[in-house]
Every structure is written in structure tokens, then in C-alpha cells.
């Protein structure tokens, strides 16, 4: 039964990710006074891409071909660890947050390799930029996550979330810092404005898009899907760690239904906030990204610090 719910939850993750991307795009279009595409446009894009035959460069090795599958499956596995509608699922019990970060690193590693593989200038440039940014973002993310795990004294996401839930409404200064740090990291990792702009293919500024420039057909579909999943994953992480209310603690149909509704609501709000901030902010120069992520790291450290000083029981 539990495994069934876990599988359902992970499939929900995968199924809903394009919808979230569509919703963000819709909000952005409305905010920018443009006519918005349908909410389901990302699904159509994915289907269209899957039906097309992939074109692979002559120089490409086997790495290039298998990378999309690895990236996608690693992301799905990461998604299975994060509680979406319920806590205490067997998938999340078997792995903790560090494994999740590991899955991300794994996926990124193969994506960067694939970018290098074909030997075009853009692919290499994109890989190098991606690695730079992630090497800066990862410590900041871990700092923010450690703040949470120290509060709950566990690295298991599911247990940590139920801990936060059981404490009731407690305002923790450390969480304020950790929240901001995690938001900043999430924006950098998922390649949103102001770090990267997912909507353009401007050669000098693109990061993520540069790596996947050579992909087409179902390969591209998988990678796009994986990055939509990653965006949703970060959204769920932020929503459920800092505002866990509504998540199902038992596996009754009612609780699960509420859990689904709650995460729908939270993600809707988060997406609107993201769209607003993307509309307000301009993309920053690549060389300022390190300052930006340095700031996130700083916030993470401050969060950890204020936990140790203020909240750790003496």
C-alpha cells in the first residue's frame, strides 16, 4: 500500500511538472501584457518532441545518447525522495536529503559531459558555466538544508518535515535565513532569471540552454521534462519544509486529498511569486552570479549560526 502511494506520488510529480512550467509561463505572459499560451502547452511540446526523430551529431559518442535517460531518471529518483503530498513514505525513508543533492549532482555531471561530448563551442561553454554555478550553489544549499536538519536532528526530509509540523507555528529566525538562501539557490539551480533566462537562446548569456543545444527529438523532451521536474522539486522543497501545513500524515484518502490540494495551492502561489520576480528583475551579468550565490551562502551560514546561538537548547 505504502509503496503504491509512493509510486503514485512520484508519478504525480512527473505528471504535474509540465503543468507548473505552463502555469509560470502563463503568469509571466499575463504580467507582461502578452497573450498567454495554454496551460497545457508544455505537454504538447513534450509530445511533439517525443514523436520526432532525434538527430545526433556525427561526432557524438554513446555518452551523448544515454545522458538524457540518466538525467531524467536521476531527477525522478530525487523527486521520489521529496514528500509531495504525504510524509512517511518508504521511498523517503530509504534516502535522505544528501542523497537527493547527490542525485542532482549526478544528473548535472552527465549533462555537462554530454555538453562537452560533441565538441561544439557552445556545449563546452555551457558545461563550464553550469559547473561553476553549481559549485557555488551547492554549499549554499547544503547550509540552508543543514539548518533544517539540525532543527529536526535528522537528515531525512520526511522526518524533518513532520518534526516542523508537530512543533506547530514556531517562528524561527534561522528558518528566515534558510528560506531566503534556499530560494536564491533554487533560482540559480533551475536556471531562472536573474541567473539564467530559460526563454532565450542568446549565445553570450545562456547557461543551461547552451549545454542542450545539440539535442533534439525525444532526447530533448526528456531533458526538458527533467528540468521542469527539477523546478517543481525545488518549489515543493521550499513549500513543504518551511510551510508544511496541509501535508498528509496518514494515508487516508481524505488526508491525501487535502495534501494534494495544499501542495497545489502552495505551488500556485510560489509560481506567481516567481513570475512576478522574473518580470521585475533583469538578468544579471554572468560575472555577478558569484556575488549573488555568495550572498546565498552567507544567508545559509547566518541561518546556521542563529540556530546554534539562539535555538539550540542549552
Amino acid at each position: 500500500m505504502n509503496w503504491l502511494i509512493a509510486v503514485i506520488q512520484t508519478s504525480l510529480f512527473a505528471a504535474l511538472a509540465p503543468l507548473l512550467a505552463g502555469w509560470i509561463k502563463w503568469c509571466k505572459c499575463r504580467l507582461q501584457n502578452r497573450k498567454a499560451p495554454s496551460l497545457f502547452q508544455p505537454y504538447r511540446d513534450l509530445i511533439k518532441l517525443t514523436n520526432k526523430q532525434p538527430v545526433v551529431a556525427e561526432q557524438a559518442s554513446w555518452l551523448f545518447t544515454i545522458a538524457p535517460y540518466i538525467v531524467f531518471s536521476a531527477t525522478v529518483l530525487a523527486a521520489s525522495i521529496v514528500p509531495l503530498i504525504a510524509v512517511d513514505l518508504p521511498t523517503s525513508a530509504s534516502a535522505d536529503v544528501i542523497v537527493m543533492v547527490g542525485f542532482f549532482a549526478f544528473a548535472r555531471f552527465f549533462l555537462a559531459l554530454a555538453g562537452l561530448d560533441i565538441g561544439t563551442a557552445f556545449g563546452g561553454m555551457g558545461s563550464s558555466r553550469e559547473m561553476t554555478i553549481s559549485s557555488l550553489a551547492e554549499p549554499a544549499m547544503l547550509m540552508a538544508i543543514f539548518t533544517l536538519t539540525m532543527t529536526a536532528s535528522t537528515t531525512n526530509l520526511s522526518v524533518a518535515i513532520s518534526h516542523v509540523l508537530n512543533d506547530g507555528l514556531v517562528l524561527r529566525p534561522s528558518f528566515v535565513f534558510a528560506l531566503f538562501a534556499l530560494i536564491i539557490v533554487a533560482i540559480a539551480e533551475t536556471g531562472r532569471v536573474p541567473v539564467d533566462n530559460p526563454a532565450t537562446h542568446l549565445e553570450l548569456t545562456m547557461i543551461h540552454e547552451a549545454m542542450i543545444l545539440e539535442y533534439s527529438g525525444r532526447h530533448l523532451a526528456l531533458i526538458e521534462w527533467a528540468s521542469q521536474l527539477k523546478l517543481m522539486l525545488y518549489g515543493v522543497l521550499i513549500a513543504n519544509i518551511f510551510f508544511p501545513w496541509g501535508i498528509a500524515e496518514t494515508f487516508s484518502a481524505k488526508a491525501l486529498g487535502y495534501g494534494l490540494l495544499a501542495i497545489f495551492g502552495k505551488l500556485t502561489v510560489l509560481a506567481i511569486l516567481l513570475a512576478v520576480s522574473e518580470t521585475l528583475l533583469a538578468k544579471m551579468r554572468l560575472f555577478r552570479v558569484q556575488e549573488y550565490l555568495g550572498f546565498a551562502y552567507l544567508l545559509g551560514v547566518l541561518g546556521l549560526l542563529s540556530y546554534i546561538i539562539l535555538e539550540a537548547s542549552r
Partner: protein
Amino acid sequence: MTIEQQDFYTQTILSLAALVGLTSFLMLGQGRLLRLIFVFAVQGLLLTLTTALAAYSLNNPHLYISAVLNLVLKVIFIPWMLRREVIQMNTHRDIEALNNNTMVMLGGASLMVFSYYVLHPIVQTTSPVMLNALALSLSVVLLGMLLMISHRQAVAHVVGFMSIENGLFFAAIVATKGMPMVVELGVAFDVLVAAVLFGIFFFHIRTSIDSLDVDLLNKLHEVDK
């Protein structure tokens, strides 16, 4: 005593304190003057909220007066004045190149650790809230100084100066439930006069060096050359 056992007032104060500290950091890394002023106003607003909350929960009417004073001075008057100045000087489109921003940020974090370290001896005599309030306000004071060191625009210096005042105000509200009324009025008066004087000074500096970049104020030396 862990944070879960504190009452809601204390938790809110602690979180507001964290936010005040956060605004200080935001100011530190801010190269655009208008945004700097905006963040400063937000900090003032957070202080006003803190004061009003303290007044409400301690049932202390004179803190309401402080809250109103703070609102008028630091959220409305001073930001308005600075904003006008920046727009008049036509510097609102400039981005100040901050050297070593990452180093400054890390320096700020160390200052925060340092202020906790300095005030640690008093931890035995007090609750973590007090320690946090005092340490945080000290770090806001020190971050204000760092802001003044790392920025070159006179307007940024004034913001730094006023955010130092903010830090002190926060300490007075949270740690000691507000200073005696006469002192608080006096301090508010001093801040007001200082703000007006800064306005006059902007005018003087502008007429004398035709810019508000205080790095150009470099005629006087420790030893005459």
C-alpha cells in the same frame, strides 16, 4: 530554553530581528542608491513593527509614541529626503562599483559572529532573546559602519549612519523595553536635526566638489605633504 517553548511574542521578535539583520546585509551589497534607500525604509518599517508589537505586548503606551516617531522619521522623512537628493543629483541610474563585494559580505558575516562573541559574557544573566536583540543590534551597528566604509556615495554614508541609529533603536526597544521617554525624545530630535544637517551638507558638498562621491573629499591629510 528552546525556541519552541518561547511565547509567540518572543518568536516574532526574534524573527523580526533576523529580518532586520537581513536588511542590513541587503544594504551592504546594494550598489544602486534608490534601492539602498528603499531597503533602508524597509528596515525602518520592521523596526516600527517591532516597536508597535513591544508596545502592544508590554502594554506600554510610550512605546507607541516611539513607534510613530520612528515611522515618521525613518520610514517616511529620511528616505524621502534622500530619494529627492539622489534624483536631483541624477545619480539614480548609476551603479556604484563595489570592490570586493564578496569579501565585504563575508566581513559582514564575521562582524555578526563577532558581535555575538562580544556579548556572550552576558548570556548567563539573560535570556537568549536579550542576547539576540543586543547582538543583532550591535551587528546592525557594525554593518552600518561597514556600509559606510565600502560605499563611496555620501547618500550611502547617510544611510549607513541612519542604519546605525536603527540598530541602537532596536537594542533600546527589545533589550530594555525602551529608554526613558526624555532620552528617546532627545535621540529622535538628534536624528531629525542630523537628517536636516545632512541635507544641508549634500548641498555644500555638491557646490564644492560638484558630486556626492566622498572619495573626492581628499584635500586634508594626517601629515601635510
